[in-house]
C-alpha cells in the first residue's frame, strides 16, 4: 500500500487498515468526473478501505466542502464495486482535512499532460494558508512567465491563469 501513497507521511495513521489489492485496483478505475485523467486514488481522497465477508467499507473525504462531484463519486464507487461482486458501503469523513499533498506523485504528471498546471507540495512551502508556488509553469509551453487571472476557476479546486509567452489561458490546480 505504501506505493499508493508514498508521498503522504501520515498515511499509516489514517488510511487503509485492511488492504485488499483487488479492491484498490477497482478504486483506481473510479475517475474524478471533472478531471477524468485522475482516479480517486490519484486524488488521495480514499481514506479507509475495509473488506469483510464480501462487503467493503470505504471512507472518502471531500476535496472542497461544496464539491458537487462527491455525490457522483460515491455512486460510482458503489457501481464499480458491484461489478466486482462486492457490496460497498461508502461514508464521508471530514477530518483530517484533505490536502493536495495527498495526491500521488504520478497524478501531478497526469494533470500536466491533461493541460492543468499541477499544485506544488505545500509541505515544502512556508505559508500554507493559501500557498501558491512562486512560479507556475504553463502546461502548454512550459514557460514560467505566467500570471493569475482569478483564484477561482472552472471548479472549486482550480484557479485560472494565463501564460504571458504563448498567451494561452490555463487551469492551475490550487494548493489546498
Amino acid at each position, binding site marked *: 500500500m505504501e506505493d499508493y501513497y508514498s508521498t503522504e507521511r501520515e498515511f499509516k495513521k489514517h488510511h487503509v487498515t485492511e488492504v485488499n489489492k483487488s479492491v484498490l485496483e477497482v478504486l483506481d478505475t473510479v475517475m474524478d468526473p471533472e478531471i477524468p485523467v485522475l482516479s480517486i486514488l490519484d486524488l488521495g481522497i480514499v481514506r479507509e478501505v475495509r473488506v469483510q465477508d464480501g462487503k467493503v467499507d470505504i471512507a472518502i473525504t*471531500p476535496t*472542497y*466542502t*461544496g*464539491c*458537487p462531484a462527491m455525490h457522483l463519486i460515491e455512486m460510482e464507487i458503489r457501481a464499480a464495486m458491484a461489478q466486482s461482486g462486492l457490496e460497498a458501503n461508502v461514508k464521508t*469523513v*471530514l*477530518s*483530517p*482535512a484533505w490536502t493536495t499533498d495527498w495526491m500521488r506523485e504520478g497524478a501531478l504528471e497526469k494533470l500536466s499532460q491533461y493541460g492543468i498546471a499541477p499544485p506544488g507540495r505545500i509541505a515544502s512551502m512556508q505559508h500554507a*494558508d*493559501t500557498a501558491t508556488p512562486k512560479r507556475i509553469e504553463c502546461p502548454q509551453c512550459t514557460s514560467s512567465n505566467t500570471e493569475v*487571472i*482569478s*483564484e*477561482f*476557476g*472552472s471548479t*472549486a479546486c482550480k484557479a*485560472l491563469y494565463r501564460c504571458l509567452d504563448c498567451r494561452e489561458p490555463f487551469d492551475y490546480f*490550487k494548493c*489546498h
Partner: protein
Amino acid sequence: MSIGIERVEYVLHLADNALILGQRLGEWCGHGPVLEQDIAMTNIALDYIGRARMLYQYAAGICSPESTEDQLAFMRNEWEYRNLLLVERPNGDFAHTVARQFFLEAFQMDYFKALQHSGDATLSAIAEKSIKETAYHFKWASEWVIRLGDGTEISHHRMQEAVDALWPFTGELFCEAPCESWMRKSFDCPDPAAMRSGWSARLQSVFAAAGLEIPTGNWMQEGGKTGRHTEHMGYILAEMQYMQRAYPGMEW
C-alpha cells in the same frame, strides 16, 4: 454526552450563516461584473452551501428523529433562523458584496481556527475543513477591497460607501448569544468577543492599503443570532423556500 437545545441552536447559527450567505452570493450567478468574478462568487457560494449542508446534517442528527437537512434549511420560518444580520444584507453593488464578505471572512479567519479546538468532534472537523477555504475567501475579499478602494475616484467612493453602510452590522459578530456562551462553557467553542483584536488588525492593514477609512460609529444593530431579523430575510426565504413549500419533499 449531553445534547442540549443550545447545541442545536449553535449549529443552526453556523449553518444559517453559511446558507444565507451562500444564497446571497448565488444571486450573482450570471450577473457578475465580469465573467471571472461571477465564477469566483459562485465558487465561494458553493463552499458555503457545502458547509451549510454538513452543519444541517449534523443539526438534523441531534435535533429530533424526524428532522432532516432539507427541512431545517427550507421549512423553518424567519424567526427560527439564527444567522447574522450581516449575511442577509442585500448584495447591493459589487462593493457592498465585497465589504460584506470581507467583514465576515476577517472574523472567520480566527473563528474557525479556534473552533477546531472545540470538544465537539463534528464541529471541530467542519472547522478544520473551513479554515483553508476561508483563507481563499479572505484573500479574494481583501484584494477587491484594495483594488476598489485604491482604484478610481468612483470605485473608492463606492467602496467607502459600502463599508460605511455595513458597519452597523459588524457589532453582532462579537456579541455572544446564549447558545454560544453555553457551547463555550460546555465544549470549548470560541468566544466571539475574543476575535475582535484579530479582526481589527486585518481591517487596519487592508483598509490602509486601500486608502479607506475605518468607520467610527458605535451604534450597532443586532438580533439575527436570536431570530430577530431585518425585512430582507423574508424575501430571501420566499425565493429560497418556494419549491419546498409548494412541493414538500421534492428532489431534483
